[in-house]
């Protein structure tokens, strides 16, 4: 058929670039095909259709080019790529994964900062009432004398307390400026969208990680092959980078070799179990001890706050104790965990879990203390409200006493008695906690890594034992501690950002400086780990922790928004009974009437409860479907594995391990051509649920085993095998090679330990 031939030629032309031929051959075949099409397509008639088609093609090409350009631009915008590559090539992917995580957090915080800064801080500063015009925006008379002192500023009191950094500064005017910008509404919505955006971003990242790890579901099967053929990055065009890459490939090979050897070791089960139980008991004791210590210190600080003349230590005792616990407990856990002798990847997860429990206990105890504080302040507020009311009244009376017709001069904002403003207090507490956390981290790095490295390097010349090889030697980069520190820091930011909008800005600065500081510290004072293990699969573990922290930090904020009354004289919600009333107010006043009606219908429990039930059912259903797919996947993999092993066994002339397969083979060997059809007919007949039919030689086995997914799986099975560019893989039965006994032993025994690699990159401070 001429039409078919023309279509064929057209298809050839469009896929010419995919053909693995020499360019000369491609060009000549192309010319031929084009001549053919020209000659005969004219006969089929073109006309206007061709022009439109050409236009469509041009647009498609332009679109592809635009997408490519945009992707290029996006990759150029990603910062610190080179820094991370450098760290990666010297320390392996696990250390670099921390920095990649840090960069990701920086990106997320930057977006949050943009939201808060652009939608809340800037409008208030530009269009709201200026500093000093209202009581809430002015430093009270009593504090003005000390408001500029550094010690006061360091505690975030004084001028900082009455600035746009904290909740208390914001005015509760419904609209501000000539743009009629609804600030209280914006404040509330930004607070919610901070959590919403973070949730979305974390879950998207988790989904992407999950996707990638199922894509290489065969990961364990091809580790070395992939390392060999896909590890060199052809994009490298710079000798230094090439050096880094060579180093990193060598490290990676050594990693895998060690991994391989680890899996060959034997174990003594009972001793191991006993030691593990012992270790867990010890660690639980530690956790309880630390919990009690914090509780004790918090109770003490409550009594301190009632006393006068408290020293610096008493005021900051809680923060100091928490930081010290955070600094000393993780190494303690690690030493105890040495008893357990887990595979390092699993050991890492246990360590992370324990540190997580520790930090969680700390954080929640801290929150409890804060809640006590807040409740006290709320009680105080009632008293102050009365005082303010009577003071203002008194001021009016006294001033009108002088001239009965003139309006009374307004009371200077600094003199108005001020409520305790619990929100700002909460904000201040979080900011102080964050700042002290930052300081402790940096000092730990400086002392623990840098000073130690300097000491080991320079004092080694005049010390009795070799400091570099023995104690204390150079520090290794503590991945788990750092990642958890980052995650908990983010949790605190999420908790505090509603009450201190400036907190996210402080965090952005912190992450920025952290990146440079830690990169420098790692390159100058750390050495690569002795046992290097890839942490790439832990990425989802970190994300899972982050998600958990996000929820845990959402809870206190949601609780305070829903159930605590806002202060009467500070913040954008002052004067309301509850903070969320701002939404109702906006709906009533700013939207047309029917919107309010719609919302009132939607908020009806009769509608919400069925909606929630529906969502629960949907989750259950999707979960069931996902499980079924996973099971099907596992079955497929098993079959492929079985097929490969069977082929290998056959080659070695060994008896098949599966007698059923052997029988079937004997049956089928004479009829290789027509094997697929009779086999499939056989399979269809054998619908017994407990027999797995043999992994077919033609790759077309269907395995009815009673699972609900049989039909779907069979459909999946009957997809044709992937057609390669060259001849299709000959998966048919092959005659066994004449007499080729291949010794199929285990891979050779463990290579004598190489320990730390060559000295070129294992010593610090180059």
């Amino acid at each position, binding site marked *: 058929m001429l039409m078919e031939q023309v279509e064929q030629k057209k298809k050839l032309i469009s896929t010419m670039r995919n053909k693995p031929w020499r360019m000369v051959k491609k060009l000549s075949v*192309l010319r031929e095909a084009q001549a053919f099409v020209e000659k005969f397509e004219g006969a089929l008639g073109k006309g206007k259709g061709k022009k439109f088609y050409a236009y469509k093609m041009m647009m498609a090409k332009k679109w592809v080019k635009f997408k490519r350009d945009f992707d290029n631009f996006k990759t150029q915008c990603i910062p610190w790529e080179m820094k991370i590559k450098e760290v990666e090539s010297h320390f392996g992917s696990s250390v670099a994964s921390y920095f990649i995580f840090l960069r990701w957090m920086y990106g997320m915080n930057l977006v949050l900062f943009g939201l808060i800064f652009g939608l809340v801080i800037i409008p208030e500063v530009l269009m709201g009432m200026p500093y000093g015009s209202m009581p809430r925006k002015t430093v009270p008379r009593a504090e003005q004398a000390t408001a500029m002192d550094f010690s006061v500023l360091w505690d975030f009191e004084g001028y900082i307390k009455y600035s746009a950094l904290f909740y208390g500064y914001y005015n509760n005017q419904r609209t501000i400026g000539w743009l009629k910008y609804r600030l209280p509404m914006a404040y509330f919505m930004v607070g919610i969208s901070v959590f919403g955006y973070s949730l979305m971003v974390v879950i998207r990242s988790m989904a992407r990680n999950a996707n990638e790890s199922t894509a290489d579901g065969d990961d364990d099967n*091809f580790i070395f092959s992939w390392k*060999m053929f896909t590890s*060199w990055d052809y994009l490298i065009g710079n000798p230094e980078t090439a050096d880094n890459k060579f180093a990193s490939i060598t490290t990676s090979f050594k990693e895998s070799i060690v991994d391989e050897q680890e899996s060959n070791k034997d174990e003594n089960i009972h001793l191991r179990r006993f030691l593990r139980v012992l270790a867990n008991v010890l660690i639980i004791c530690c956790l309880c001890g630390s919990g009690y210590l914090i509780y004790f210190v918090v109770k003490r600080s409550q009594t301190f706050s009632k006393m006068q003349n408290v020293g610096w230590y008493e005021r900051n005792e809680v923060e100091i104790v928490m930081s010290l616990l955070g600094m000393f407990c993780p190494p303690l856990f690690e030493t105890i965990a040495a008893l357990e002798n887990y595979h390092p990847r699993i050991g890492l997860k246990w360590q992370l879990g324990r540190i997580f429990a520790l930090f969680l206990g700390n954080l929640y105890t801290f929150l409890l203390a804060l809640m006590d504080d807040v409740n006290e302040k709320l009680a105080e507020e009632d008293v102050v409200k009365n005082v303010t009311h009577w003071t203002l009244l008194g001021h009016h009376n006294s001033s009108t006493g002088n001239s009965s017709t003139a309006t009374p001069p307004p009371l200077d904002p600094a003199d108005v008695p001020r409520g305790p403003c619990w929100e700002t207090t909460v904000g201040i507490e979080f900011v102080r906690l964050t700042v002290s956390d930052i300081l402790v981290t940096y000092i730990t790095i400086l002392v623990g890594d840098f000073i130690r490295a300097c000491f080991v390097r320079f004092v080694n010349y005049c010390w009795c034992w070799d400091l570099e090889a023995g104690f204390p030697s150079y520090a290794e980069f503590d991945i788990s501690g750092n990642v958890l520190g980052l995650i908990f820091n983010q949790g605190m930011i999420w908790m505090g950002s509603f009450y201190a909008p400036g907190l996210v800005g402080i965090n952005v600065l912190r992450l920025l400086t952290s990146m440079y500081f830690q990169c420098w510290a790692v390159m100058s004072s750390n050495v690569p780990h002795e046992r290097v293990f890839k942490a790439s699969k832990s990425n989802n573990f970190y994300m899972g922790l982050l998600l958990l922290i996000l929820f845990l930090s959402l809870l206190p904020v949601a609780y305070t928004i829903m159930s605590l009354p806002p202060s009467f004289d500070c913040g954008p919600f002052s004067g309301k009974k509850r903070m969320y009333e701002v939404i109702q107010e906006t709906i009533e006043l700013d939207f047309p009437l029917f919107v309010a009606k719609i919302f009132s219908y939607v908020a009806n429990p009769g509608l919400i409860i069925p909606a929630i039930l529906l969502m629960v059912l949907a989750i259950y259903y999707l979960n069931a479907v996902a499980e079924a797919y996973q099971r099907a996947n596992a079955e497929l993999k098993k079959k492929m594995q079985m097929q490969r092993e069977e082929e290998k066994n056959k080659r070695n002339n060994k008896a098949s391990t599966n007698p059923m397969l052997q029988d079937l083979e004997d049956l089928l060997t004479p009829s290789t051509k027509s094997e697929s059809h009779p086999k499939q007919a056989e399979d269809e007949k054998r619908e017994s649920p407990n027999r797995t039919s043999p992994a077919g030689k033609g790759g077309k086995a269907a395995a009815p085993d009673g699972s609900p997914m049989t039909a779907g799986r069979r459909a999946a099975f009957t997809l044709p095998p992937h057609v390669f560019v060259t001849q299709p893989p000959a998966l048919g039965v092959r005659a066994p090679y004449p007499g080729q006994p291949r010794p199929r032993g285990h891979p050779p025994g463990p290579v004598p330990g190489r320990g730390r690699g060559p000295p070129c990159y294992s010593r610090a401070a180059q």
Partner: protein
Amino acid sequence: MGNKQTVFTPEQLDAYQDCTFFTRKEILRLFYRYRDLAPQLVPLDYTDKPDVTLPYELIGSMPELKDNPFRQRIAEVFSENGDGNMTLDDFLDMFSVLSEMAPRDLKAYYAFKIYDFNNDDYICKSDLEKTVNKLTRNELTPEEVSLVCEKVIYEADVDNDGKLSLEDFQHMIIRAPDFLSTFHIRI
């Protein structure tokens, strides 16, 4: 689009666009890159299809290739005679296959050819050893190299002949998650 170039005839340009993954602009840019390697050898007018071949040394000195441990093999695979000397056609072909638009199958085919050092259509143990040594710049001990090669054969050799055929290789590399992103040269 502007028709101001005089290097190729429009038909030639279209043919190149059909046979590679590049756009018109990219093909011209590649031509100028090729010419910059040896301006005195490469004429500015390709309309009569001159027969110009650049020696391997010039190709291997390109910034994109000079740090690649496999540059010699790449040039050999894409050249006419397997000696590394490339015409413009070969040059375009090479970068087209190594560009990010090329599909997996195509890249896998050429990757196999590149890693087959002795050109016998099989990747045997000696090929693997050469690959590992090039990748690690001879920093692994012979035992480690041997271990790695044996593991690779164990993992990927399906038909059990002790070496990797094209099918074995493709079967293994098609699933690799990093293959597309590493087997890629941007020009």
